[in-house]
């Protein structure tokens, strides 16, 4: 599904990703962990196509297509979804209008006409229930005045509506209390199929108690320095990152 080879990227002239290799297959859940500043969020932004980041080397294939050549909206249509660490507030744009525009843009991409109002409302109702998102929020502006938990649930709600093939969830657990964390994680699990894949970017093992990864990577200084099974996350939780640094021959 996703093949990242020797990916280099920079922002404002500063190189953040220094050669990432990553392969994700349908049905897999990958966790990417790593200390602050290691490039986790940059990787997610680059995969989603944020124009503020400049790719300076390497390649990314998504189902055989050159992902890096696509506009962010095309990546979305092709099935890449980014759940933001800090979901963006858009005052004045209602959730309803936003989602209608998103759904219809995707349909247009696949040559279908706009969804009928009744069909759309049914879809919204159905997907809202996955993350127990309050109906009230639908009439409000996108993320405006939402609590931290509501924002993250709103991300998973959008993911449910767009039905991506690959979801990249950037620190979806940050700022969540334990109940919200459970709801968000259950939402992600409900959406999991044998055909789609998820990359969970997180700081802590906590989220991985709920979303079970198949493969865990450690990102450090712009490179994936270690890849193993779920036990790696537990080890990190227990021992911190220092032992990884030591293994890399760094002074701690």
């Amino acid at each position, binding site marked *: 599904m996703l093949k990242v080879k020797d990916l280099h990227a920079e922002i404002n002239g500063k190189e953040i990703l220094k050669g990432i290799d990553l392969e994700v297959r349908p049905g897999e859940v990958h966790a990417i962990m790593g200390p602050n500043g290691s490039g986790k969020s940059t990787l997610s932004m680059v995969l989603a196509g944020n124009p503020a980041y400049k790719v300076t080397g390497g390649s990314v294939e998504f189902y055989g297509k050159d992902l890096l050549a696509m506009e962010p909206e095309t990546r979305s249509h092709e099935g890449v979804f980014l759940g933001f660490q800090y979901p963006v507030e*858009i005052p004045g744009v209602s959730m309803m209008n936003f989602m209608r525009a998103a759904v219809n843009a995707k349909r247009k991409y696949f040559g279908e006409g706009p969804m009928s109002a009744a069909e759309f409302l049914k879809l919204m109702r159905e997907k809202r229930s996955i993350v127990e998102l309050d109906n009230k929020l639908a009439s409000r502006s996108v993320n405006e005045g939402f609590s931290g938990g509501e924002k993250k649930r709103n991300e998973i709600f959008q993911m449910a509506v767009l039905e991506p093939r690959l979801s990249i969830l950037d620190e979806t657990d940050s700022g969540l209390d334990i109940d919200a964390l459970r709801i968000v994680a259950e939402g992600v699990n409900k959406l999991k199929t044998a055909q789609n894949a998820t990359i969970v970017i997180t700081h802590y093992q906590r989220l991985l108690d709920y979303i079970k990864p198949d493969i865990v990577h450690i990102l450090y200084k712009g490179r994936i320095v270690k890849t193993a099974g779920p036990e790696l996350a537990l080890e990190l939780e227990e021992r911190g990152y220092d032992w990884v640094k030591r293994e890399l021959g760094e002074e701690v």
Partner: protein
Amino acid sequence: MIEESLRQYIELYDTNREEIDAQSAPVLNRHREGALACLKHLVLPRKGDDNYENTDLRAILGADYGVNVRRVQLPVNPADGFHCGIPRVATSLFFIINDRLVCGVDCREKLPEGIEVESLREKALKAPEEVERYYAGLADGSNPIVAMTALLAQDGLWIKVKKGVRVADPVQIINLSGGVNDLLTPLRVVIVMEEDSELRLLVCNHTAGGSVNQLTLSTSEIYAGRNSHLEVYTMEESDMTSARLSGLWLRQEDDSDVLVNGMTISNGSTRNEYHCRYAGTAARLRLYGMGIADADRMIEVYSRVDHDTDRCHTDELFKFSVDDRACCGFTGLVRVAEGAVGNEAYQSNRNLIGSNEARMMSKPQLEIYNDDVQCSHGSATGQLDELQLFYMRTRGLSEHEARMLLKQAFMADVINEVHIPGLKERLAHIVERRFAGEAAGCHECSFNTCGE
């Protein structure tokens, strides 16, 4: 020394004064000589002068316009084929064709007892003493727009809501100007809200289209009596070849509540002035507006709110979206006089710039002469937020669509200050279409359907 750009009007008046007077009313005619004397000595502000950052009065007035002094009627029946662009609003509909008031179908019947919507000229002929009390009572005769309309306006609009009358349904005035030649239309409006009265008024300003140049000059005087409630929504959708200079002069008595929302959706060159004054205590003014300018359009707003009395409250918000080579300007002054205690005034100007060549001039000002006030003012001009754009694109919206939605969203708080049911939604739709680059959104209006 007469200003060159004013000379044509002075000469036109000199040549046609009898005809002008004959087609008007003595109450209006009495002010012409004073206006003439004023215009002969008036030094027009230059573009870039204080309060005229964008408006080139000499260029606008200096173009060669005709004035329909004999008031020959246009070969247009506005009621024919008119479809209200604002569904679900049971409006009493009137037209002003150039300066002549024409009733829409059934509009008189729909008006309740106690409200007058009439031709200013006819009212001034019928009840001269009453019009005399109000006409030219607020507007400063030395203001160029006021002096020009005092000299040349032969008619206009008279609205009066009598004491205690609360008009439930909004009244809509569609102002259409145009003709076969380049035309200047001068217009005077007087609105009198007596004690405890209530009215919501929607004024749509349109030009007839085509290749002719048009200049509309409009002076409105609004008297808001004790505890009256008035909402005035003005919308401009006119052609690139049109120019509009308007001044609204407002006087508010005790406990009155006035909302003015001026929306320039499309235009050529527009200058809207708001001169507001509290003459009583505990009154409230909400002064809002928006301007959408692209190509080579120009929109300038000047506002001045004088707090000379106690415990009045002003909320002011103007927003502009400026693209391509367009220029917009906001100059706003709130002045709180010495001894006027307990006043609150909040002024805000927010602008969105969409290109390197677009220009926005903003001058928010507060002048406060006592300590017992709560006031703020602010201005911010910026571009669309890149992160918002990116967020929307990751959900599949094209960059173009995301920009459009964000621009619409930018105007949402001005549109939210529309309190006529149905009109808010309609306006949101018009603004959406405007940002989508579609032609003026009022093609349901009579003029365009007539032309089809």
